């Protein structure tokens, strides 16, 4: 039985991991950039940022997925399944990461930025070389939370017909008329999250060098 269901479940896990990695690789750097933009832009762009973050955090990710894939064609923009998934996840997770970074940045002593300014460093240098590295260290536990959430949030892409792990599990449950695939699905999720939290722990240790 396990041998029969495993290939489709592993293929599903592959889709899950693909969405996970692409979202993470896009959203974390994007959040660092947008946070810089927010900090430097002064008052002009602030309402735009607040609006974006409120929208992303205030509506369900499932709805955002459906809106981008099923709703945008009515506004004249038809996106492929994959692109819709990556855009929705990246926009959503970037918003959360920006908020995490904002909190962590405010924990960095403002005296450092002042000192940097006095030494003639550019604002960009101060942000990327002095503030951001420290903020990222402070933010690591919160980022880790989001990373593990992301693994499990990927299960939402079933709504666009993508055969991720949970969907593959449901499919196997229907085909073989037993609940065993759910157990295997749970173990696979646990293995993925376990691996990532181990990795996150290593990274945290590695960057706490003083």
């Amino acid at each position, binding site marked *: 039985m396990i*041998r*029969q*269901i495993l*290939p*489709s479940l592993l*293929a599903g896990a592959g889709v899950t991991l693909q969405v996970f990695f692409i979202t993470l690789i896009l959203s974390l750097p994007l959040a660092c*950039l*947008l946070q*810089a*933009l927010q900090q*430097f*832009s002064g008052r002009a762009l602030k309402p735009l940022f607040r609006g974006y973050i409120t929208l992303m955090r205030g509506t369900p990710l499932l709805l955002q997925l*459906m809106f981008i894939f*099923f709703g945008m*064609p*009515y506004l*004249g*923009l*038809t*996106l*492929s*399944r994959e*692109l819709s998934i990556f855009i929705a996840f990246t926009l959503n997770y970037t918003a959360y990461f920006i908020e995490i970074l904002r909190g962590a940045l405010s924990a960095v002593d403002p005296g450092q930025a002042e000192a940097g300014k006095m030494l003639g460093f*550019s*604002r*960009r240098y101060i942000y990327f070389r002095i503030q951001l590295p420290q903020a990222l260290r402070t933010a690591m536990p919160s980022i880790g939370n989001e990373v593990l959430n992301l693994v499990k949030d990927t299960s939402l892409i*079933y*709504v*666009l*017909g*993508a*055969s991720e792990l949970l*969907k*593959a599990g*449901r*499919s*196997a*449950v*229907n*085909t*073989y*008329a*037993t*609940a065993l695939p759910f157990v295997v699905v749970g173990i696979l999720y646990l293995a993925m999250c376990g691996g990532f939290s181990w990795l996150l722990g290593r990274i945290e240790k590695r960057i706490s060098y003083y």
Partner: protein
Amino acid sequence: MKIGKLGMGLIGLALVAMTGCQSAAKPQGDSWSAIEDRGKLVVGIDDTFAPMGFRDENNELAGYDIEMAKAVSEKLGIAFEFQTIDWSMKESELNAGNIDLIWNGYSITDTRKQQVAFSEPYLENRQLIITLADSEVNAKADLAGKTIAVQKESSALEAVSADAAFTSALKNGAPEEFDTNIDCFMDLEAGRSQAIVVDEVLARYVMKQRGQEKYKVLDENFGTEQYAVGMRKQDTTLLEKINEAMKACNEDGTTAALNAKWFGE
């Protein structure tokens, strides 16, 4: 200044991303010529619906509808591409032009007739009422005050809801709805619902897998319905072509062979 550059870069990136996507492909009018140009038809299927469409042990699509569609594809001389969809989104997928056909145990109902065009029916299906073997429920009337489970967005739900006197007598005045039919079976076995209403085609398959002796099929049912292929209303050429190809399958014995293979009829 530097921030300005950063901002410009981001806007540029966004623009590149936008132009990289095709603009509005929402189909209007008969899309047959567009389909011929493309050289393929996109078939929307739900791979959680054994025995009509599911994944075999090699993660390949299998099932009655898949094989039927492949036979029709050969007759039409046009390639079919199978796209898995979420069943509750099937009409949205069709109207957005993401798929050209809905082909997965898709029953003809009055509500659906208003939204999509149906091919000639290719399979008969009844909505069975199933209970556990030792249940004291033997007729619809026995289900007053009890809980029943059905698949959401399904024709079973539509059939049950149409019987207002029956549903209002149920425990919460409505049936419990689940994502898939197998969820309904599990709910029945867990004892949370006392009966389920499901497609006969699927029910026979599931009962065979889980053991016939555990269940009881009531003599009463929620009517007979027919499976057909759904497509956009404006696709009249496609409708003709599909009907012709299915007729050819009936005449050369392909359909009979499929029925024998999957349902032993």
